[in-house]
């Protein structure tokens, strides 16, 4: 479902946003990878990215509302992504 294809024309070539995604600690264990590149429709938000990741059956065990950082700052789900952004999925921290 969360395929974000709400925009017109399945075959129209649209500009895309490519971001790198990093997984840490427990989320890396869940994902089975520590990083990947993801192509998103232009105008995609953090929330769109999370939904798209979880639509992949290999990543469906990721939680629906993880903490996320974009370019090393905590970000909310409404934040727009642009190409080149580094997005990190941040499990509950346990430093200190």
């Amino acid at each position: 479902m969360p395929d974000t294809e709400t925009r017109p024309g399945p075959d129209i070539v649209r500009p895309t946003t490519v971001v790198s995604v990093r997984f840490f600690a427990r989320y890396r264990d869940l994902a089975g990878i520590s990083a990947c590149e993801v192509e998103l429709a232009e105008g995609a938000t953090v929330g769109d990215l999370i939904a798209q990741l979880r639509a992949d059956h290999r990543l469906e065990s990721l939680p629906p509302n993880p903490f996320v950082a974009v370019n090393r700052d905590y970000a909310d789900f409404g934040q727009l992504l642009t190409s080149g952004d580094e997005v990190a999925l941040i499990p509950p921290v346990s430093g200190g």
Partner: protein
Amino acid sequence: MDGTSQVRALITPERIDVAALIETVGSTADGALTVFIGRVRDTNEGRRVTGLTYEAYEEMAQSVLEEIIEETERAYEVGHIAAVHRTGQLELGEIAVAVAVAAPHRAAAYEASRSVIEEIKVRLPIWKFESYADGVAEWQRQ
């Protein structure tokens, strides 16, 4: 506040040197200095800990730790604050985190120290992986 630019926030795989950290914040204008040291305990919620590893999102942890220090220096009447967090594999009793705060008066030195460590526990992108004597190993939640 004296314009020197020593390292005040550090994420490091090296052993933490508390004496060096205290030097970082030293100033004869500040009579009170507090140091908080967090070490690897031998038990956690009743289970015997045998080993511990901290993983960090290092680049972000570095900038978040700097932010925490700057915010706390603005919020309290303190001179300098320095903090360091260890990464990688640690032995029992080794120092995981240390925070030093110098201030003209002791109330602010205590309060700012406490504030830094609480913020570290909430915001610093670092994760603790603990192994237990019973064979289990787990990522910790705060």
